[in-house]
């Protein structure tokens, strides 16, 4: 792993753009209240993420895609979203983003309960597109949505999440090219977590950096320490300001590390040792932030204890909500395919009703 930029994440503090000129001034520095809020969000996400794995082991949910170690990248970027005007296009591993944006977490987790593909939350109200399992599938959607804002002359910005693995997909190239050609207000937020299931970044991303590719499209790019939540907030805000001002897309590559498995079905022990994992992951972003807050006198032990207690209470509430989720009525299987159903589908639904009632 010594040759890969994912190891150790030495991107450091917010750098100058790798390419292009990133206009737009960042908002003022975060207040003490905002810093504490970020910490509370990170603790809530960490606790929920860890619990979701336990729920899977207990049989409450059939599967989950953990994000252990990516709390700073997810919470920091999601925190910069203005849900009054922006729109976010997630993958299947953006629970921290959803939480930071204030999405109903029972409805979010329902997709992992296998209740409904895409989740039960209202994407229009929450400003979070349905969960997306096709790698890079939604990156182009962000470009289309963003171009729609240009046509409508709003100042909304789309943010598309994808990973180092997804950057190998052709749709990411097409999305970056389309966005650059149309000057669409899109923030491409890459979480380079070092792994695409079992394949490390150096076997996935030729050249070693997704951000470096942006230069080829004339898109300004930032490569940041994705484990530093303050740096993530700052970079995302700068990117939003740039796109909102009509200067076109921005790419942020947040260097982080997926500390856990790809999913609850994955066994990372087959492709990396615990020693490698410990050495490459670097410092825990949550612990790191906690030390900073403590050293800067922004928060104290009582606050940390309170944040953890709140996270536990929240997790129990979400767990209860998940447990209470029944199956969706079978009719929805037929009713939600089209806005205007078809006679054949109606006939199949009628047949299903008749036969299931007689079982």
């Amino acid at each position, binding site marked *: 792993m010594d040759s890969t930029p994912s190891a150790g994440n030495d991107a450091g503090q917010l750098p100058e753009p790798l390419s292009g000129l990133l206009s737009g001034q960042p908002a003022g520095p975060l207040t003490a209240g905002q810093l504490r809020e970020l910490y509370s969000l990170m603790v809530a996400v960490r606790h929920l993420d860890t619990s979701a794995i336990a729920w899977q082991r207990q049989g409450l949910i059939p599967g989950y895609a953990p994000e252990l170690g990516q709390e700073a990248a997810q919470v920091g970027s999601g925190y910069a979203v203005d849900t009054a005007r922006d*729109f976010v*296009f997630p993958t299947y591993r953006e629970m921290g983003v959803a939480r930071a944006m204030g999405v109903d977490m029972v409805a979010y987790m329902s997709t992992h309960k296998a209740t*409904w*593909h*895409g989740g*039960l939350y*209202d*994407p*229009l109200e929450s400003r979070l*597109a*349905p969960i997306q399992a*096709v790698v890079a*599938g*939604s*990156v*182009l*959607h*962000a*470009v*289309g*949505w*963003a*171009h*729609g*804002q240009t*046509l*409508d002359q709003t100042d909304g910005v*789309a943010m598309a999440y994808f990973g180092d693995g997804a950057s190998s997909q*052709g*749709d990411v190239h*097409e*999305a970056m*090219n*389309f966005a650059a*050609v149309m000057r669409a207000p899109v923030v491409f937020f890459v979480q380079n977590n070092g792994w695409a299931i079992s394949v490390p970044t150096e076997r996935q991303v030729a050249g070693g950096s997704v951000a470096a590719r942006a230069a080829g499209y004339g898109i300004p790019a930032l490569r940041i320490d994705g484990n530093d939540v303050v740096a993530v907030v700052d970079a995302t805000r700068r990117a939003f300001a740039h796109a909102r001002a009509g200067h076109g897309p921005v790419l942020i590559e947040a260097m982080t590390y997926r500390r856990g498995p790809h999913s609850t079905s994955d066994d990372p022990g087959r492709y990396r040792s615990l020693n490698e994992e410990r050495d490459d992951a670097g410092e825990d972003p949550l612990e790191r932030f906690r030390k900073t807050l403590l050293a800067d006198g922004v928060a104290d032990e009582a606050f940390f204890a309170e944040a953890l207690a709140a996270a536990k209470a929240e997790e129990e509430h979400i767990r209860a909500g998940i447990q209470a989720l029944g199956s969706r009525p079978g009719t*929805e299987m037929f009713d*939600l*395919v*089209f*806005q*205007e159903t*078809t*006679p*054949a*589908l109606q006939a199949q639904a009628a047949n299903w009703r008749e036969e299931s009632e007689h079982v």
Partner: protein
Amino acid sequence: MSSAILEGGAGMADGTPRRGVEQLSMQQALNRALDEVLAGNPKSLVFGEDCGRLGGVFRITDGLQAKYGPGRVFDTPLAESGILGMSVGLAMAGFHPIPEVQFDGFAYPAINQIVCQIARMNYRSRGTMPMPITLRVPSFGGIRAPEHHGESLEALFAHVPGLKVVSPSNPHEAYHLLKYAATRPDPVIFMEPKSRYWQKGEVDFDSADPSGSPAGGPPTGAKVMREGRHLTLVAWGAMVARCLQVAELAAEDGIDVEVLDLRWLKPIDEAALAASVRKTRRAVVVHEAPRTSGLGAEVAQLITQSCFDTLKAPVERITGFDVPYPSGDLEDEYIPNIDRILFGIQRVLEYRRG
């Protein structure tokens, strides 16, 4: 553009002026439909490769950018997945995209976005994110085009839950079906028979009966293009005109052939199909696509299910072959020709049990 308005004057019930009947090519009829859709819905957008300044390689979008501006009608980079993926986001943002892929074979690079995204987003989002996307696909063969410029993808698209599929057979159908498709809230694959683009025909703009049924209404089902008593030819797209030719030739031998233009390949108008075949008691399905797992199999099964008691013979299929679409020199051997269709009719008429 010829504009021989044969009647006019009085307004329609909905306030639009009567525009009468014109002789138009299918290319002109499609252009007119797009013009009216763009005029009627400010959220509708026409885009794709060369759709703007050039007006499309088939000129279907001719003049539209000049009229509606580059915000409504525009050229995209050359990338089909990008065109369709962008359409998803635009639909999420409240637009009504009418994208074009330049040739049928170039829909393949966009299959992921069409099948995994466009077709499923309404379902995935529980109806909160409809995909009112009309994908125009110049389709089928018959123009001696290079490889990948002549394909019949209807079975592939019709098989995908969440998509609707339609194909016009003449200028009148092209106008009414496109106007209808492009105002629906669900994704529609609009398969234009490119070999018919330059054929002229009457377009009755004010047709109170685009449905093709006595009850009137929108063009949602199949349409009997020629009444007959002895046998039903079921076709769509470019094959409808060929089947009408065949019907005229068969009539010389005293065989009275009914021609049913299926129009919608998903959903298939099962009632119209059953009504026609229960009358004629014999059916031949004609399509350009390869035979195995083609739409002809679906049509034959629907006929069997609804007309088994009255059928005089098994449903016959006259189709393309299970070969890659051949070069221009062999195209006429591949596409069902008049002789092959006549042989099929003969086999069905002469069928004897056991």
